């Protein structure tokens, strides 16, 4: 009895020792997702990534291995994100990371991506600094990719659309810039100040507000006193509160520009409908077939999670596919080979055709912008629904403003 027992253990151990390498080949490929899971724009990042992984796995995975998403909550804190990143790389042994919509967080992770040679992409942060570092110090920073528009590019979309919507359609002439004090709005504002006048909107004032602001009454009163035709926004950490106060105080000029919180489907409910008339930027919207993948993704997301995806979710979904493709091409998870493969990406995702800019470009490892690639949309909240209003060829509706808005005659 005793002897058979021992033999049993020995043979089991023997079996394990030889079976282990075989089992390892079928081990899942882990992709780390670090995001702000209790923030409205952040929660879509792991949600969408998991959807993508399920779809890839349903089709047999990558090189016979399944994709596993390991998600971490960074509580909107750079320190928490760095800890999560280290854990992902050293303990959980992920092959790549998708992280955050907050520029400060991504900028804190960036040096770690270099040190730990861990491929990293952000689905929602915008600071120009992210790609500038890759450009300036390619050898160390090449592991970082920028999966969302840089701030300057965002401003350019807002200005280009502004020329069509605000200047040509509504005959507007003046604007006040209202943006929050954060890393991503520094290049955004710099570009606004240049490109708005070029589009035909004179900038009367440029207000930077603290992301901790809760009472926007003084800000709106100041803006109203300057009598601009439109308020051009650059807000992400704030959103619900200024929108509600704008509506309650019946501030007579429209809000137009970048408003990340407005991209989330729950924004209407969070503001009790005060969002009506707010115009914001997105790279993909649930009502527009930017590509054949956009609408099916938005629908499937809503079915699974009960609400439409926020802006970063689209990119996060695409990025899992891109990492999977890079791993397939690289024949494994060697980081240098993955980066090489990722640089050759030519992928049509939910947000358009994605190619990364080469290392000598100022936006090295940023996405190629323009006709045929990523273009950007302007979307307006109308009666509970986000309606795409620009560009004209994909628009699903016209601009409509609440009764208290006074448009130039």
């Amino acid at each position, binding site marked *: 009895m005793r002897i058979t027992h021992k033999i049993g253990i020995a043979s089991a151990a023997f079996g394990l020792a030889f079976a282990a390498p075989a089992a390892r080949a079928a081990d899942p490929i882990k992709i780390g997702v670090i995001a702000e899971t*209790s*923030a*409205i724009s952040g*929660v879509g990042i792991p949600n969408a990534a998991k959807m993508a992984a399920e779809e890839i796995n349903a089709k047999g995975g990558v090189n016979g291995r399944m994709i596993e998403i390991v998600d971490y909550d960074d509580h*909107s804190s750079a320190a928490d994100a760095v800890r999560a990143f280290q854990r992902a790389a050293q303990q959980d042994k992920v092959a790549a990371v998708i992280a955050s919509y907050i520029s400060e967080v991504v900028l804190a992770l960036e040096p770690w991506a270099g040190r730990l040679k861990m491929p990293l992409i952000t689905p929602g942060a915008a600071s120009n600094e992210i790609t500038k570092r890759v450009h300036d110090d390619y050898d160390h920073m090449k592991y970082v990719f920028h999966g969302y528009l840089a701030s300057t590019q965002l401003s350019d979309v807002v200005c280009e659309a502004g020329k069509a919507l605000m200047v040509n359609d509504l005959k507007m002439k003046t604007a006040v810039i209202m943006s929050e*004090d954060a890393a991503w709005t520094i290049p955004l504002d710099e570009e606004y100040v240049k490109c708005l006048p070029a589009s035909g909107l004179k900038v009367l004032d440029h207000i*930077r*507000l*603290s992301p*901790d*602001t*809760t*009472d*926007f*009454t*003084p*800000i709106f*009163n*100041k803006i109203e006193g300057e009598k601009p035709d439109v308020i051009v926004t650059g807000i992400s950490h704030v*959103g*619900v*509160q200024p929108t*509600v*106060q704008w509506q*309650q*105080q*019946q501030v007579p000029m429209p809000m137009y520009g970048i408003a990340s*919180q407005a991209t*989330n489907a*729950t924004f209407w*409910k*969070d*503001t*009790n409908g*005060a969002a009506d008339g707010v115009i914001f930027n997105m790279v993909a919207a649930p009502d527009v077939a930017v590509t054949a993948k956009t609408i099916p993704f938005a629908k499937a997301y809503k079915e699974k999670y009960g609400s439409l995806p926020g802006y970063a979710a689209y990119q996060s979904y695409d990025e899992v596919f891109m990492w999977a493709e890079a791993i397939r091409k690289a024949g494994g998870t060697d980081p240098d080979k993955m980066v090489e493969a990722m640089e050759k990406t030519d992928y049509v995702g939910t947000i358009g055709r994605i190619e990364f800019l080469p290392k000598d470009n100022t936006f090295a490892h940023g996405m190629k912008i323009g006709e045929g690639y990523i273009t950007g949309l302007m979307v307006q909240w109308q009666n509970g629904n986000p309606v795409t209003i620009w560009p004209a060829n994909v628009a699903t509706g016209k601009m409509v403003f609440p009764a208290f808005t006074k448009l130039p005659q």
Partner: protein
Amino acid sequence: MLALQILIDGFAISSLYALGATGFTLIFGVSGVLNLSHGAIMVVAAVIAWWVAGTFGAGAYLGALAGVAAALACAFFTYSVIVRPIQNSGAIPKEEKEIFVLTGTLLWGIMLQEAVAYLFTDNPKTVRPLVDGVVMILGVRTPWNEILTAALSWGAIGLLYLLVNRTRTGKSLLAASMNPRGLTLLGFEMSNIYVLVWAIYGILAGIAGVLLGAFLGVSSANAGTLTASAFSIVVLGGLGSVSGSLIAAYVVGYLETMTAYLVSPSIRTVPVLLLLVLVVYLRPQGLLGRR
């Protein structure tokens, strides 16, 4: 014009501060407890009001009622599960109990805050205002909701005043804040008085939370700031002095509003904090402090 604007906006926000701080200072006055979960309880009230009004289609009034009820429940829970066990504990030395209560309520506040963030995200929620629309006051476009906020705040404070000064129960509260020992000797059960004061506190914090949610919007991330703001007002007014807190609420409210209008909205709270430092140096008992 600008002066009038400051006057009107400052009044509304100050009234709300006054209401928020009244309950906070009352608890301290009567039972010596500094409740650091105060901000979190206000947040719970606002978020529950938003949730009930929106998700169940219950409407603004039922939502507001649910918010106040949630704050009341939280207040009772805070007292019976956090504060009372510490006060009754034989294991904690008497002179350390205050620190334990501070720590206990602080941690409980963080738990509440995290729970709200987990269940409802930390994105700000706005409670549907009880009234819509705006009115022109001497050329200043003022939302009716702002006027209602000020009126309801003062209504609640007025009722509290009547309760404390005109009813027997209320007078026992006042007595408890002056001489708890004497009150016990007269045959009053202190624990009943504590339950009463926490109930009043819960209702006041609930109303303040719901009104704040309708006026400015509230996120779980605001819990700490709300506690700090009540704390500053109470220190400025004099710990435990309700009338001191009312005056201090207006000082803070107007100082903030003036800073926001005249200097910059991004340094709104800085002058108040400087003032607080000065008060601690020059008049540590606060404006109307008793010590």
